[in-house]
């Protein structure tokens, strides 16, 4: 059993968090598009210690066929964690947490894709968490949408995603592991940055209506920063500077 200890205070007198970040600061991020050869599109992302690969296959034929939709493509999103990606080895195979994350991520991504262009087909998105350090669902989604773009799938916009949360009575951006484990609330958000339409929203914890609004505001800021990184990653692969 590895325990992530709760720090005495999450925020010091100077307003810095345990890892030295400001309240509204993302962890260091690195995004690279087109990193795998077999997949139609792919992306590698690091956010803090998170290390995640996303790959996209499709639009392609649906098997089994009874899953086909006559007038649109379906999206299948598979979030999975390597057994060695977490402190205590995770048994292989999807648990209930992975299933739920896959479902809400699938729905978040669907919103951005012009599904009606590819009737009867499927877009398969596979996400593999190689190292996990709080924020994997949102970070995966950020990578998955870059992989979709890399695969040439027509989209309304990219999906950028990050979480905000509450620690020591403050709303902060992008929780790290001790903040995620011992904080008061976690608010994962995904959006299409151009229109600010929110396509994923979850909340765990205890917040007032005002705090939720504040948390969404902050998450939006984070999403916009990630959006720039996403576009840079795609540009550096496909030129167009």
């Amino acid at each position, binding site marked *: 059993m590895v325990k992530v200890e709760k720090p005495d205070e999450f925020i010091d007198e100077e307003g810095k968090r345990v890892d030295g970040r400001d309240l509204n600061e993302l962890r260091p991020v690195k995004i690279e598009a087109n990193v795998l050869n077999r997949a139609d599109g792919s992306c590698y992302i690091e956010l803090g210690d998170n290390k995640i690969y996303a790959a996209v296959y499709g639009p392609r034929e649906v098997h089994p066929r009874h899953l086909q939709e006559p007038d649109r493509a379906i999206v299948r999103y598979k979030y999975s964690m390597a057994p060695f990606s977490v402190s205590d080895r995770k048994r292989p195979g999807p648990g209930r947490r992975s299933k739920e994350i896959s479902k809400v991520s699938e729905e978040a991504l669907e919103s951005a894709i012009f599904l009606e262009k590819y009737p009867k087909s499927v877009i398969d998105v596979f996400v593999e968490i190689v190292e996990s350090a709080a924020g994997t669902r949102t970070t995966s989604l950020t990578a998955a949408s870059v992989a979709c773009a890399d695969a040439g799938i027509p989209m309304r916009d990219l999906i950028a995603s990050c979480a905000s949360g509450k620690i020591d009575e403050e709303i902060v951006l992008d929780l790290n592991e001790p903040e995620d484990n011992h904080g008061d609330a976690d608010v994962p958000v995904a959006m299409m940055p151009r229109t600010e339409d929110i396509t994923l929203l979850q909340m765990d914890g*205890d917040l007032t209506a005002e705090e939720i609004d504040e948390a969404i*505001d902050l998450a*939006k800021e984070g999403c916009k920063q990630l959006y720039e990184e996403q576009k840079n990653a795609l540009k550096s692969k496909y030129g167009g500077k």
Partner: protein
Amino acid sequence: MDEEIIAEIEKDYIFDLIQKGTRSDERNLEEYRDINIETNYVKKADGSAKVSLGDTKVVTGVKMETGEPFEDTPDQGVLITNAELNAMASPVYEPGPPGKEATEISRVVDRGIRESEAIDLKSLCIEEGEEVWMVFVDVHVIDQGGNLFDVSMISAISALLTAEIPYEQYDKDPEATSLNINTIPVSCTALKCGNGIIYDPTYIEERIGETRLTVITDSSENIVGMQKGLGGSWTQEEIKEVVKTSTQKGKEIRKTIKSSI
């Protein structure tokens, strides 16, 4: 085929009504269907509730056993929430292990109970690191008339509110007769259909919804959980409005729960 065309026409009709601010069963957009709660329905369960919301029907049973605590919470009881969408509940459900929909419902109900701290899990510790009470909450949907999140949450908390710890059966000293629940988490689910946002959607309304938002509030009217679902998206303004309305509706539902047990 014909049946599908009729279904399409019905969907269009329902959608149009909502744009005009009304619904096919004459409810207003924010109005809930009748809630009926029957607790202590299953004698063999430690707590139980049969709940109907309109023609949606759910039976929840609570069973308690003694067992080992989780390694990272040696001084706490264990809460396990399952949802089963019985194949009898809908023509599209199939027998087998929980699919994506059932998994999402069980996890949202579980978080509602857990994050609101409705159950004091520490009070369920028998011997630290060795033995604790395990609380199984099994939510069984037997008629899928829409809005499973809210009705599952209502039936789960109603069953817990009336549950009695089976001390005798396990030869343990009785410390409390019930689970000692101090707050009542209630979920309210909003569905966006064009320009209208409706609450407590029926099965057919859910088929035309673009996007969904469930907000769980506790007795202090704090928000303890949210879950966006379906494709589609919400604006921040809409979310604010849904949070406000859900808090209000949650208060009414909480009243109904209290008066039923």
